[in-house]
């Protein structure tokens, strides 16, 4: 009975909704800065909250949908960065923030060196993010380069 009540109840809630589910989007790996995640307003009436679309992500994913590599373990620094590049660029400009911490953790930087990593990223903002068209790939390479040429951080460079 309660199913019947509920079902009747909501045939209508939906009349206000006409949007499609949000697209998965690409990996975001070659995306330029400020690409974000959303396409043209897919979220306005989307069903993201209580639903999860298809690709079964039980293990930790390695970034955005398109970046999943089944069997890959954990967030590698690279795909993590691709996924939060916009947020990271803001933290790099400001010199601190959660995206900054998360990227430094994902790159394997130890707690005692993270403040230094943040400081260095902040002062090298212009070379890590030379323009609005920089890609995650290039940012990753610049970060590696930056760590390599720093005595305190060179041990984390790959």
């Amino acid at each position: 009975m309660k199913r019947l009540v509920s079902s009747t109840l909501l045939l209508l809630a939906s009349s206000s909704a006409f949007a499609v589910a949000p697209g998965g989007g690409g990996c975001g790996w070659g995306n330029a800065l400020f690409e974000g995640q959303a396409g043209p307003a897919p979220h306005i009436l989307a069903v993201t909250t209580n639903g999860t679309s298809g690709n079964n992500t039980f293990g930790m994913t390695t970034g955005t949908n398109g970046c999943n590599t089944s069997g890959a373990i954990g967030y590698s620094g690279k795909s993590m960065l691709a996924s939060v590049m916009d947020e990271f660029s803001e933290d790099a400009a400001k010199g601190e923030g959660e995206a900054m911490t998360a990227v430094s953790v994902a790159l394997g930087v130890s707690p005692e060196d993270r403040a230094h990593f943040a400081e260095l990223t902040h002062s090298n903002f212009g070379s890590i993010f030379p323009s609005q068209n920089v890609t995650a790939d290039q940012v990753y390479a610049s970060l590696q380069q930056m760590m390599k040429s720093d005595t305190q951080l060179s041990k984390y460079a790959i």
Partner: protein
Amino acid sequence: MHIIKISWLYAIIILVASFQIKANETPTNNTELQQLIDITSKTELWKNVEWLNLLHYQGGPASTDYLSQVDDPIFFNATDGKTNPENELKATLISLYNTNTSNQDEHAQCRNIARFNWLKNKFPDSFKQSPSIICKQYLEWRKQVPEEKVSLIFPAYHLNSPSSMFGHTLLRIDPAENEQASTWLSTAVNFGANIQNSDNSIFFAVKGLAGGYSGTFIVAPYYEKIKEYNREENRDIWEYPLNLTAAETRRIVLHLWELKNIKFDYYFFDENCSYRLLELLQVARPELKLTQQFGLTAIPIDTVRSIEHANLMKGTVYRPSQTTSINYLLNKLNPTQRDLVLKISRDAELIHSDAFLQQNSHTKNIILDTAYRYLRYQQNDSGRSDSNAKNSYLLLEAINKTENFSSEEISFTETQRPEKGHLSKRLAVTAGEDNEQSYIQLDFRMSFHSLEDNLRGFLEGAQINMGSLSLRTTEEETQLQYLDLIDIFSITPRNDFFQPLSWRIYTGLEQQLINGRDHLTGHVTGGAGVSYNLWPQSSVYGMLTARLESSSQYAQAIEPALGISSGLLQHFSFGTGHLELSGEEFYHDEFRHRIKYIQNINLQRNHAVQFSILRQRQTDLYFTEAQISYHYFFH
């Protein structure tokens, strides 16, 4: 590809099932196993609440009166495991001793690792003769999932999406040190329906209610959730660290592995995301009695309150959404400065203009920060554009070059806390007079919040009601006054930065005066328009409306009408007042005009008194109606 997967699944099910049938019937020659079976059956261990929780059983008290909410045969070891916890316990023991160890990751000791662990704790001296299995996949997974602390996460209301209007809950599992104050890499645990990308929102709502979906647990990095809710959907996120111990947290993690890819029935209203999380918390701490408080509905915020009530919370962390942050910052600026933010967001070169340079450094920081966030908001809304990207970059560069730039800390006030709002169900007793006929009326509302209700903890200008029902009794008769299935009213003021639509949709049955007497009439009414803030806590709105009405009294099956609706909503410190002028004209020339004022007075969190007065003209008839109601909120 899918076909292959499915046939594999079936192969496994058949394999497991055929083994179980055999195992159930064959007496074992392993003495340790036989002892375990004997002792568990003698002590009726299957009645243990921890066991019942782990298998998601409901019902009882006899073993055959149970039903597990898990809807996936592979989850059970006994063929009748879904309906019989006693047999399932016995079959689980047999499976744990299964000597076929060719695929170790698929062995019951790995697949049912939480059950195995629980039994090992109950019988520390047993399982010496069971095969020794290494759960490689599990161990690899565990490297990434911390197990020290748990937070309950509540992404608040998202009015424009039917599936999210009531909010949502998920859990987050953190490592002990929180990775130096960043929870971005923590593990989010989310229960959701398995929808197809092609299913749209209508489809989801209908199917979700009818139980057409299955649901599974999903584990993902928390930063994905922050982006999804805070940035893409513009919802505030409330985080409540819980006082679960590391050992209790570990039980959740073990159980999650057991629930990997396991399907549950999914129902939008009751067996939903929030209900499943309560079950997880009961697995962690068996003495909790959370799920039994939720029958017909498990509205997310009500489940948050039940967790608070069980003394599980030990703090609050607030993550404001993109739009909340922008509005907060805009409130720190005067109109000229706000205008500057808008201009700079359109042309970032204006940071070199005198208008900007003459501001003090604190104000400059806020202007830069707000303009940048506003650009990000626009990008989320309409995608990347060259000019947006260029302006965003120039602003970041300027922020980077500002010495000692610091963002404003955006804090919350106590009145914003969603868990402190009134409860979701409402009962009202009303005394009224309609054209000199007095009546008493009883109203029940299943959920959730009206514009005039106590605003504390809710979104301003957001009315979402589902399932309202009213009985009215006069000297002559008792009748169903109205039955509202759904009633959504969204008043979102526009300004220079945000231009949302205000809209309304409601439908149900209500009494209408037709041919001289009341008739129960079906209707669907909707409208769209705009709204503006007059001053803080006050908004005006105007919209065009359309209505379809159906009654046996009409010549046509459905009578259409067009109309307008406008009003003023004012939140006073003691309660909300709502003045509305509205009217519609029907295709068959009849028209209705009305003016209505409602004043709510908040007595306590869950108690209110409401006055209303209505004057209506219906073609050549005039009515006046006055009411006084007492409202009681509960769940």
